[in-house]
Structure formats: structure tokens, C-alpha cells
């Protein structure tokens, strides 16, 4: 018994070591979203291309939607842009843009020069919808299912690898759920 007690500090030391070591490999910027499983918030915003064209939640198509938060001030958005153009070709979902904290003219130039992958891009200069979505940086991509429920939030640039790992399984899952409901 006495001998065992002597080892307690050593055991505690190792336990603490393991906990702290795990902490080293955690990503402190990967925050859980508080909005998963909740309905996509209502909004009323003009598009980037046309300040008089007001879009609301009702203008989102049925089916699976991807909402990509971007801004011309965000270098990673530039990185993922070519992949977004690829994604936009897919018929499995529709891609929407949410332009955050930007200048309209710069955003328009961006879309003309680099191409426009979005169905439309909402212009959220004041961060109204972005705050409701809990956006804290760009790029961020949300997956909204056909029932209008937010299923995923991903922070960081998209590419082929990220898509396969993070998005593809979820899209397939939503498609299956839809089929089952259809029966």
C-alpha cells in the first residue's frame, strides 16, 4: 500500500503529460458551430451584382445548398475560388455566395475577373446574416439540406481533398435521407 502511494505523483505526472500532449495537436481555431441542426436564418440582402435585387431565404432553391462566405480581403478565398468554379458544375447541390464585410465594386471586379461560381452572392456589408450564421472569418462553407437545416459548417479553404473528406460523405447521407423520405 505504502509503495503504491509513492507512485501516485508519477502516475499523475504521466496523466497530465498525456492530456497536455494531446492539447498540442488540437486546432484552437476549429470551433464547433452552435448552429448545426438549426434552420438557416432569415435574411434580406441585395446581391453583389445588383444593389436593387433583394434576396431572401425564399429565393434559395430546394435541394441541397452550399453557402460559401467570401470576401475580396481574404487571401484563402482566392485560393479556393478555382475549386468553387469546379463545384458549381455539379447538379447535386446549388452554390450560393455570402460576401462579407466587403466593398461592392471590389467584389464585382472579383467575380468578373475570376468567374462567378455562385447562383447569387448576397452582399452582407454590415455582417447581418454573417453574424446570424456565427461566421467569424472567411472562407467558411455551410451545408444546408433540402429541409433548410444547417448540417455543417467548415472553416477554411475548400479543395479536392477537403471535399472528399469533409463534404462528400455528408452530401451522400443527405441524398439517402431524401430518398428514404420519398418512399
Amino acid at each position, binding site marked *: 500500500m505504502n509503495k503504491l502511494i509513492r507512485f501516485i505523483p508519477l502516475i499523475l505526472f504521466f496523466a497530465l503529460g498525456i492530456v497536455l500532449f494531446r492539447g498540442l495537436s488540437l486546432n*484552437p*481555431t476549429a*470551433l*464547433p*458551430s*452552435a*448552429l448545426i441542426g438549426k434552420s438557416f436564418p432569415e435574411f434580406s440582402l441585395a446581391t453583389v451584382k445588383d444593389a436593387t435585387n433583394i434576396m431572401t431565404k425564399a429565393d434559395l432553391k430546394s435541394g441541397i445548398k452550399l453557402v460559401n462566405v467570401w470576401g475580396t480581403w481574404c487571401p484563402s478565398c482566392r485560393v479556393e475560388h478555382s475549386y468553387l468554379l469546379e463545384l458549381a458544375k455539379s447538379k447535386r447541390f446549388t452554390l450560393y455566395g455570402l460576401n462579407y*464585410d466587403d466593398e461592392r465594386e471590389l467584389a464585382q471586379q472579383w467575380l468578373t475577373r475570376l468567374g462567378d461560381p455562385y447562383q447569387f452572392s448576397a452582399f452582407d456589408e*454590415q*455582417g447581418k446574416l*454573417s*453574424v*446570424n*450564421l*456565427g*461566421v*467569424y*472569418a472567411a472562407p467558411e462553407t455551410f451545408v444546408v439540406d433540402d429541409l433548410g437545416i444547417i448540417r455543417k459548417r467548415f472553416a477554411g479553404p475548400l479543395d479536392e481533398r477537403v471535399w472528399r473528406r469533409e463534404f462528400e460523405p455528408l452530401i451522400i447521407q443527405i441524398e439517402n435521407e431524401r430518398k428514404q423520405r420519398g418512399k
Partner: protein
Amino acid sequence: MFNKLALFIVLFLSSLTIYASPVDTYEFKDEVTKIRFNALTKELRCPKCQNQNLADSNSPIAADLRREVYELLQQGKADIEIVDFMVKRYGDFVLYRPRVSSLTYVLWFGPALLLLFGVAIVVLILRRRAIPEAEKVLTVEQKNQLDNILKDKE
């Protein structure tokens, strides 16, 4: 001379603190709202730059969230409602003072438990040592010595 020196010291010390916080030009309807705004933006954490609060941070998201807090205050929302508003969107993460929940029990009560644990160990060790100490009896020789010492004192 002394007055001048004192003045110099006061001026010197007051120049050591520098505040570099972003300046917003919000106008409040009364002093209380202003104090509440300052308190809330100090309590809420900036989601982007995680080691700063909303009041400190210059990032666009912090500016937006400050405006959001301001607008909610103008609408007459209570502090708890504003905090709830933020938690609903950004999660418990935005609170610098975490709420008591099953997730944070360790955080809130861990230190107290560790202290109790430590105290228990100290008590245990002291008790164990105290017992043989009490059993010690003076030998005849030692008793005589003690008597002699006491006599000398008298």
C-alpha cells in the same frame, strides 16, 4: 523642488499606461447603457482573435459584433438576452466566464476538489507521523536530566 519632483513622478507614471483600443463613435442614451456596453464588450470574446475581447479587437468581426451589441442595447434588450444572442450563434466559446454546465464542472469545481485532495493528503501524513511521536516516553536517565535542568533554572 519637492513639488516639482512629485509632479514629475506623477506625470511619468501616468505616461506608462497606454490604451490602444479601437474607437467607435457610438452615442448612448444614458450613462448606464454606456457602462453596460463597455462591460459586455469586455466579457465577450472575439471569435477571430481568440485572446482578445470584443472591446480590444480591431478585426472586422469584432467591429460587427460591437455594433450588434450596441443595437441590441438600443432595442432595450437585457444583458442576459444579449449574451444568449451571442452564445446561440458562436457557442459557449464567446464567453470569457464559462457557464456552469456538465461540460464545465471540471473547470469550476476541479480546483476546489484538488485543494480538498491536497488537504486530505497533508492531514493523512501528519496523523501518521504524530502517533509514534506521542508514544515516546522518557527514559529514567532523561528524566533525571530534565529534573536537573529545571532545578538549575530555579
